[in-house]
């Protein structure tokens, strides 16, 4: 990032959109943390703060009608893929106006209209689904590609292995993007993985594997673009390992809860220095690519967007309780076999 000369810099519109989407994630998550602390967002929640560049760099490198699957760290991906904040925040609050009508929640955000095929509470569970979406694109000849996000913890799951092998042996258009933030909850990568470099596992699937700086949105963007082109040419999947860091704890547990001292203060401090928003802003300003005022304008707009999303979500109604009992099958003419009998 320090050396903008080294990478092919995308056009200004893309740069602006990078900043906008990264900021959206940051502001959205900040507000989500705030509301979660106040009890307005129930259930478990994992923020993407610190990891914005990977999500945004990857998603902007593909088209809106390309697909994306995500993880339990789940707000950054759909925002990066272009889902609007209102329906996401409403979903987090369990409101009927949420992107999944309140049925999904933080870990199951999805907006199929922009190719966001679903985040996943179960680690690695969306990986085979991503492979299937790519298979579908291949069979239909649609030219679509799939971005499959997963964490460093996911790489030891059987689903990771089966997914990468299937994608490779069938030459499917998937870009496997590992968000390596160093830990699965408190367990460091090297205590969990026999090879600490995730990209090295690409060798087991005869696909290209690259490790790059996940705080550098341009590096991610460039690498994913290349992988996407390769995929569209029918040359199969790629594995990209983006080194990143979560600035907050694994999940939001309130201030009385501690995940323990598994990360050193120095490590945290070092990474906070590598804030992807600051890095990006500094780099484009230094390179004179975008005037500060435009970036400031985006900040103002996104702040307003995030504030509006909270307002929208809070004002929205909870779904009516009956909604809980419909929607399991498309055809519900036959009543579900198991509704609670009414004894009244």
């Amino acid at each position, binding site marked *: 990032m320090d050396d903008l000369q080294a990478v092919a810099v995308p056009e200004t519109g893309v740069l602006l959109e990078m900043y906008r989407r990264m900021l959206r994630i940051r502001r959205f998550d900040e507000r989500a943390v705030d509301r979660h602390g106040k009890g307005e967002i129930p259930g478990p929640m994992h923020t993407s703060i610190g990891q914005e560049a990977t999500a945004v760099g990857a998603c902007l490198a593909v088209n809106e009608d390309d697909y994306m699957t995500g993880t339990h760290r789940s707000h950054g991906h759909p925002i990066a893929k272009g889902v609007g904040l209102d329906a996401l925040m409403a979903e987090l609050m369990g409101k009927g106006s949420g992107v999944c009508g309140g049925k999904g929640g933080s870990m199951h955000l999805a907006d199929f209209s922009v190719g966001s095929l679903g985040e996943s509470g179960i680690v690695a569970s969306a990986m085979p689904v991503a492979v299937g*979406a790519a298979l579908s694109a291949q069979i239909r000849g649609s030219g679509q590609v799939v971005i499959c996000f997963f964490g460093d913890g996911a790489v030891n799951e059987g689903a990771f292995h089966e997914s990468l092998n299937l994608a490779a042996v069938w030459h499917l258009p998937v870009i496997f993007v590992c968000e390596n933030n160093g830990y699965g909850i408190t367990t460091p990568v090297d205590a969990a993985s026999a090879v600490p470099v995730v990209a090295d596992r690409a060798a087991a699937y005869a696909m290209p594997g690259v490790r790059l700086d996940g705080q550098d949105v341009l590096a991610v963007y460039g690498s994913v673009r290349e992988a996407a082109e390769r995929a569209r040419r029918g040359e199969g999947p790629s594995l990209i390992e983006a080194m990143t860091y979560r600035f907050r704890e694994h999940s939001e547990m309130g201030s009385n809860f501690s995940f323990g001292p598994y990360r050193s203060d120095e490590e945290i401090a070092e990474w906070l220095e590598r804030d992807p928003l600051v890095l990006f802003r500094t780099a484009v300003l230094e390179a004179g690519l975008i005037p500060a005022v435009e970036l400031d304008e985006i900040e103002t707009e996104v702040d307003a967007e995030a504030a509006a999303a909270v307002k929208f979500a809070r004002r929205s109604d909870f779904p009516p309780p009956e909604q809980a009992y419909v929607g399991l099958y498309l055809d519900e003419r036959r009543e579900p076999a198991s509704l609670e009998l009414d004894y009244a």
Partner: protein
Amino acid sequence: MPELTYRQAITAAMAEELRRDERVFVMGEDARADLWATSGLYAEFGDRIRDTPLSELGFTGAAIGAAMTGLRPIVDLQIAQLVYNAFEQIANQAAKSRYMYNGQVSVPIVIRAAMGYGGSSAAHHSDRPYPMLMNLPGIKIICPTTPADVKGMIKSAVRDPDPVIVFEDNNLMLQKGEVGGPEDVVPIGVGKLCRIGEDVTIVAIAGAVPRALEAADRLADEGISADVIDPRTLVPLDRDMILDSVRKTGRLVVADPANRTCGAAAEISAIVAEEAFAALRAPIRRVTAPDMVVPFSPALEAGFYPDADKIVAAAHSVVGGHDAEVFAGAH
């Protein structure tokens, strides 16, 4: 109407649906080899028949992803208990997606799973795992028992917008019968009253159906007449057919080759004990496999599954005396 074996009927169902709808494709281990029910499909459909690596979790999940994005995959798991390997994807992705994404997406996948119990297939290859999946809302489960039904119901399954698992019974594979044509489907969720009687309702599942019909014949010789119901679909179950029958006969025997505890027979019993209690004139009898691992030796496996003898004995025990006291606590 042509006569086909049960296995040929499965193949015919897939072939017809492949012809009808280009979104349909088939995947499974050795699906291109002419081994089991996929025999002959590769010759006609080429790339639409896909051999998979041994990766049941991965390729079932891939089929789910393909189904979410516009295709209609048929996954041939071949051995029913490979659902254990694919369980996570079936449970979390196939069953839950429509609901948790609030109807944004359909998962029109068909999973075929053949059950090979009763022939010394031994502990790892003899499971009949449908009860576990019945406890998992969001999946439809069918267990057709005739060539006509398996053909017509697989066709319905392929056209269904939701995930359907087909539990095929290997003990029925060579059975012959007339089947419907390319336009004929047999609906999911509708039971079949195979035989009409007055004295007892016998609900039989999968390979127990022919055994129940045999039992009903023998009971008829003694002057006991039985309704024999093949639910054909386990989820959603045709509750009304079963309840109506029990309201008429007052007695219920359920014959089910799966394990007993929390099995399909338990569910059917519980529905009846809840909703047709007033009509019940005797204890409900379950004739199931015992809750045991399946032994290899024919000498050990022989008595494991419902057969006509056991079904007749169970029927006797409920029809014999209308005084239920006799049986209560027989355990």
